[in-house]
């Protein structure tokens, strides 16, 4: 029996519902390409982008927890979050580029939002590269936690300050989503179906990754015991 089976099934149902509604129920939106069908990528792009940001917040939380309690598991959780952030960040970048190509004719226009997601991707990668370059577990945990937190002010700047300082093409798209320029059914589907489904997926992936880590530890322990038996 899988632990927490009910909510994992729920995530599946929710995600299916989101996909179904996105393609079948919700109609095309005015002012978007492909007779308005182009707007539907929003249901997958926006949650990915939000989750990439959320991953960083979660990672920073675990980094603080590690520095306060010095338990190696917090560090692993921090790294897990960063890895997931990279995955969702890549998804957001790809969906964003497709949308950009359809709406504005270019895959990449160095719009501030696009640049921020690129820098966030760089940040996730840099964290993982730095973490992989150190072998001693405690040292690795301290150094990478500190790096995750040192990048907190720049990341905050990137998300909240930079796009406001420089005018953005996104303004149009953002206003369409938040300000209600889209058809009436867009927002409920995004907020109540697609976002929760992605969030559930994130939690599930997070748990799987941590289970993998625990198995890895168990394996290491068994190997060490085997070695001792052989020595005796």
């Amino acid at each position, binding site marked *: 029996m899988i632990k927490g089976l009910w909510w994992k099934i729920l995530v599946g149902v929710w995600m299916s519902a989101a996909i179904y509604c996105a393609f079948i129920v919700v109609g095309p939106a005015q002012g978007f390409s492909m007779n308005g069908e182009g707007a539907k990528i929003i249901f997958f792009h926006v949650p990915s982008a939000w989750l990439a940001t959320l991953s960083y917040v979660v990672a920073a939380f675990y980094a603080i927890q590690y520095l306060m309690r010095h338990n190696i598991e917090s560090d692993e959780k921090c790294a897990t979050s960063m890895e997931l952030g990279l995955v969702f960040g890549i998804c957001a970048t790809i969906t964003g580029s497709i949308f950009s190509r359809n709406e504005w004719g270019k895959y990449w226009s160095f719009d501030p939002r696009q640049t921020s997601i690129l820098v966030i991707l760089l940040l996730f990668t840099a964290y993982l590269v730095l973490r992989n370059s150190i072998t*001693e*577990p405690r040292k690795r945990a301290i150094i990478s936690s500190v790096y995750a937190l040192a990048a907190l002010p720049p990341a905050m700047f990137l998300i909240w300050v930079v796009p406001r300082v420089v005018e953005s093409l996104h303004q149009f798209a953002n206003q369409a989503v938040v300000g209600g320029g889209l058809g009436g059914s867009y927002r409920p589907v995004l907020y109540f179906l697609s976002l929760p489904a992605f969030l559930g997926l994130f939690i599930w992936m997070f748990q799987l990754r941590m289970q993998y880590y625990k198995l890895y530890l168990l394996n*290491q322990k068994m190997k*060490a015991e085997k070695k001792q038996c052989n020595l005796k």
Partner: protein
Amino acid sequence: MTPLKLQISFERVFKKYGDREVIRDICCDIQHGQVLVIAGPNGSGKSTFLRIAAGLLKPDSGNVHISVNNIRFDPQAYRTQLGYLSPDLTFYNELSAVENLLFFSSLRGIRLQHDDLASILEMVGLRGRGRDPVSAYSSGMVQRLKFAFAVLHHPPLLLLDEPTSYLDEPGFRMAERIVKSYKQNGIVMIATNDPREKEWGDLTLSLG
């Protein structure tokens, strides 16, 4: 000024490097006026033990207390007060011995007078060479400078990791003199495998 009374206690100290337990469940008490010799084969954790005592390394579990007149300190808090000498200690090559000593003593809040400097250089046998840059020093001279660095603030707690390596016979006697005189005013801990150095000890801790 009342004389200090120093005591160090190690309570169930553990330290791991990766999977390997270097320090396993060490308990010991060292009283004022004692010399502790830490012996053991290479890789048995002698240096690690001294680093923990110096507050340069945190044990994975267990406690170390340094009490001065029954006031307890963490090794981290006491770190800037003790004297420490080890093979991996180095100085600024671009600066002279005197500049190095002046820099580190003023960091500790001590103003060394000309006479103090002269007598400390005399004591470690570097008189007349104090103005030379450290880069021009031989290994033995650097070792003597390390002694000067370790004792220049008159620490009641002296931690020596392989203190006589690179030293010649007069250097060895200099080290012996320092250990004997510091023993009366506090505690000396020595990590060594040299049989002659082992004779200085009142207590011996065998690792490994």
